[in-house]
């Protein structure tokens, strides 16, 4: 015979389990609904505009003086250029910081570094964008001999800054997770500390480090405000890092405000959102596989 107290505990346990289950399922349902919504809202667009014209067209001009065009290629290329540039800058710095953080920094230095990384990740993107617009863009312009620095390079630098905290903290964690015995064995065999780090520790932590790159990439792809402020947003197809770019996120942010509800342009923005979703979904899928591989 169960006591009253025990019964109460059992009932509470059941309720708690339902609550947790509900929250978990809720997230999946929300994600599913978002995807469904994006898909449903983009469909009418493709009745008006040829899919090939959308994905490979080079002129995005939905408010044209005469004929509207919906070529998303410059936007997709812009997003890719900004992200690749950001990763080219963030990866070496991020991995260097992560190694220093987990292998060298001790005591106070480590505390200050940890604090700095946390603060860096919490700076609002509009603040980073403003600093970029007023300080970094003119500087980059001078450095590269152009009259202004509102281009892909400036955007990449700022995106790198925003992706760094993710890369540093996840990489540092996975480097720290490498068993001490591996390091000791390497050192005992006569390897130097550099050799141990580059040949043993980093390869052992590889999947975690790769996952951090992918998550950082996801962060860079989805960032809106900063790139909107410093890249000039001209819709011409970019050919180098010194060209102004207009990312998918910036385009949606700029145009969704004034678009007529239910128009081709309106659905076109949803189609852009869907493209963006597929890009970041792909990146996250790769990241997920890498993290899982680490566990095995």
């Amino acid at each position: 015979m169960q006591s009253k107290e025990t019964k109460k505990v059992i009932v509470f346990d059941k309720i708690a389990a339902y609550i947790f289950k509900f929250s978990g399922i809720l997230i999946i349902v929300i994600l599913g609904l978002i995807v469904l919504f994006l898909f449903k809202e983009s469909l009418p667009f493709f009745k008006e505009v040829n899919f090939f014209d959308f994905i490979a067209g080079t002129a995005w001009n939905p408010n044209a003086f005469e004929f509207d065009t919906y070529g998303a290629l410059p936007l997709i290329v812009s997003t890719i250029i900004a992200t690749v540039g950001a990763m080219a800058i963030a990866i070496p710095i991020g991995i260097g910081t992560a190694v220093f953080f987990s292998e060298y920094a001790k005591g106070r230095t480590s505390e200050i570094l940890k604090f700095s990384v946390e603060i860096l990740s919490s700076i609002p993107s509009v603040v980073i964008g403003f600093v970029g617009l007023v300080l970094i863009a003119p500087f980059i312009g001078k450095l590269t001999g152009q009259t202004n620095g509102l281009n892909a390079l400036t955007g990449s630098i700022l995106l790198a800054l925003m992706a760094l905290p993710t890369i540093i903290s996840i990489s540092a964690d996975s480097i720290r997770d490498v068993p001490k015995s591996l390091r000791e064995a390497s050192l005992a065999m006569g390897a130097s500390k550099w050799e141990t780090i580059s040949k043993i520790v980093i390869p052992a932590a590889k999947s975690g480090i790769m996952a951090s790159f992918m998550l950082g990439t996801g962060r860079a792809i989805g960032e809106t405000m900063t790139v909107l402020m410093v890249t000039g947003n001209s819709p011409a197809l970019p050919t180098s890092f010194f060209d102004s770019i207009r990312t998918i996120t910036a385009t949606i942010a700029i145009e969704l405000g004034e678009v007529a509800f239910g128009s081709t342009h309106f659905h076109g923005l949803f189609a852009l959102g869907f493209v963006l979703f597929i890009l970041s979904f792909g990146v996250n899928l790769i990241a997920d596989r890498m993290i899982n591989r680490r566990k095995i």
Partner: protein
Amino acid sequence: MKKILSLLVILSIGLFSCGKGSQKGIEVKGSDTLLELVQEMGEVYIKKSGIAVNVSGGGSGVGVAGIVNNNTDIGDASRQIKDKEIKKAKENGIEPLEVKLGIDAIAIVVNPSNTINQLTTDQLAAIYKGEVKNWKEVGGPDVEISLYGRQENSGTYAFFQEHILKANYSDKMKRMNGNAQMFEGVKADIGGIGYQGLGYVMNEDGSFKPGVKVLAVVGKSGRAVLPSDKSAVLSGEYAISRFLYQYVNKNMTQTVKDFVLFELSPEGQAIVKKTGFYPLDERAKELNPELFK
């Protein structure tokens, strides 16, 4: 548990009565260009009359749509209502009435280091179409032109395109996020050119703010005029100026009419001037004959 419940009940009663208790004021929405101006009008008006004026932005399209669909008392717009919008309003049984509040001039700005002082409207169009690529082609230094414009959701973007460009903007034009960023961009760029609402670059005493250089524009009259030249703007000689509009329902309530008349009174027109636009002053009556019948 009981405590939390009773707290919730008290809270919800509080919220409900708040919503019910507020007095019905005047609803205004629309153009972001007019937002600050009309908010200022509202703040002065509530002190005068005790009637609240709730102003929100969203763009000229939102303001006009508000009147067409009869869900606002006043719709702000920095462009004129279109024929198809009037037609739609009439289908909904509404006759829109146009009120002219003031005049906004758009200033053409370049970097202070640029030696150029004036441009014709044709040159401006060629520059923004991307046909003229270097300042030396229009009498300036040998520096590549770098174009600054507003984003597609801006009324100024549309106005400049319709009245000066009459074509597509160059796809090399940088689309800046608001007036402040265009100002910063041109200030830092020796080849830069931009356009912005006069209120943003002119002080109340008619002098220009430092950081950018305001160009004179040569229009049909063949004379180069600055946007700070009040008589040239009011006569339309300065080529890039526009009226600031409000749209109301012809059968508006007396409360709404009183507010609109206040806006056109000397007191209201002083606010127009204070917020960086040109007031209509004594011409307010002749420009808005319907209201003063």
